[in-house]
């Protein structure tokens, strides 16, 4: 039960993240606004559904606590997977176009934004 919920929370976050991160993997993809909203709604619904399930199985005090912890951990798992995914998917995808992609993080940001 708990494992399934972990998947729910995890992959729902994955779905919610697709719009922003997808260009890192597919390079020249561009999701339309409608699809983006759809994915984010689906992701959020899955997360809320996971909360409901956890409250049902764990009780009103343990449920939200487990949910909150799982939310963080699964988000971190998604970030780690996304970090290393390009290495595995790059050979199978079409090569990126010559112009700079629309994704912001590929543009070298001034290294000192957060430091003085």
């Amino acid at each position: 039960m708990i494992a399934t919920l972990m998947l729910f929370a995890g992959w729902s976050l994955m779905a919610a993240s697709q719009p922003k991160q997808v260009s890192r993997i597919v390079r020249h993809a561009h999701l339309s606004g409608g699809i983006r909203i759809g994915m984010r709604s689906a992701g959020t619904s899955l997360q809320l559904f996971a909360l409901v399930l956890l409250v049902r199985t764990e009780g009103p005090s343990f449920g939200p606590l487990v949910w909150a912890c799982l939310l963080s951990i699964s988000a971190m798992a998604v970030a780690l997977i996304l970090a290393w995914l390009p290495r595995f998917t790059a050979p199978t995808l079409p090569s990126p176009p010559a112009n700079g992609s629309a994704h912001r993080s590929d543009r070298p940001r001034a290294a000192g934004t957060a430091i003085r």
Partner: protein
Amino acid sequence: MEPTFRASMNWLHTWSGVVLGSLLFAIFWMGTLSVFDKEIDRWMMPASRLAWPADFSYDAMRPAYQAALAAKSPSVLLLVPNERTPVITGLWRAADGSFAQHMFDPRTGAELPDQGTLGASRFIYPFHYSLNLKVLGIGYWIVGLCGMMMMALCVSGVVIHRKIFTDFFTFRPERKIRRTMLDLHNVAGVLGLPFHVVISVSGLVILFSLYFPSSIWAVYRQDARLFGREAYGTFARPPAKRPADLVSFDTIVASAKSAWGQGEPNYLYVFNPGDAAAYVQLNRSSEDVVSNISHVAYVDGATGELLSAGKPEKPAAVTQRFIAGLHFIQFRHWTLRWLYFGLGLAGCVLIATGLLFWVESRRDRHRTLGRSGARVVEAVTVASVTGLLIATLAFMVTNRALPLGTSVFGVERGVVEPVVFHLIWLLSLLHAWLFAGRAWVGQCRAISVLAGGAVLLNTVTTGDHPIRALADRQLWPIAGIDVTLIISAVIAALAAIRLARRGRAGTGSSMEAESR
């Protein structure tokens, strides 16, 4: 102080991070280990790796009580064994005023030999909340300040993180080391933000009466001692100076349970032992709730009658105990416990990457300007991160390497272990100062060797090797620790290899640090 709010928060985040980062890492690291402090205790005290009897009889605690009586202690705290601590623990004050802790078999009540170690619950856990600095309670105040600054760091961190939602999942290990450090710092911080904030504030709220007693003084004036009674229903009475026997513990517990309805006690605190006015304070175990509940019952020692029972029912007190419970995590919920451990490690990564990012971004600038700031912080960072891990492992390895009862230069093992810890920690600082950026490789190798060595020593000295420990339910704590040690050894080894490779490939100035 700076023209814009964001710039001020940038300054605050940077400087409180640099100054307190090492301390914060130590507190977070010891706290993360304390999630499994009872399990580490089992690892360091092999004689306590017993099976918890499901049919535990409270009268098995009688011999422990008798031992305390013989020591003429004014009170004796008897901890009821449970799944995580399958031994009866008795704490009392010996005739010479010294504090004594003894363990007893839960089935027979026979005393177990002195385990000759502080273990996790008396070294690692107190380190977490007081840095083991007992003079004037200064350790509590330093930790308290660190807790407040952790919250300030979280707030300022969010303020200065401009694209917090765009970069929500951004972690690019393929970029330059400084970018990668910052990415990881942001990911660990933002994704774990609820945990970092809640754990910091809840830790502080536990000690609310120590850190902010002014509100208690203000409304109670001279009657401040009444606070405990009014908030939690505490009870006390002086001894009658007439000897009397204590009734059976099973009777006493039954009386307490009549006040609670259901639930078992987690401790029996006997006041005025051996006296006609003896009474026992029992607290209901909080294994089935999040809150660190205080449902106390007071039972007369001579008759077994219920004297009084109290539990905070008013909102502020109930809230405080719930918040405290979020930090104490005394509940029985293994999934949640492991989740807390994982999030605690994320907190450690957060702090370490923050320090590393600062070092990386200042290293070249300081070298060309002739400033030593970055070099000092780098040495301190290495010592605080990998050095602390090495010292912790050395603590555990010493426990297994030195047989029970041995002493070094006349100092018994229980004292040698903390000495080794601090000595190794100091040596790691020296090593870091001498080797600068190259120190990481050596220290990662040391972690790997020590972690693996710990597992080997456990097998050699106790015979509970990981495979056997996984098969036997009562040894699962040992299995958990050994497996974690093995995984840590592998990660440390891989890190050392990658760092060495990067060091050979890169120039001197790009010798960098990777977080675990």
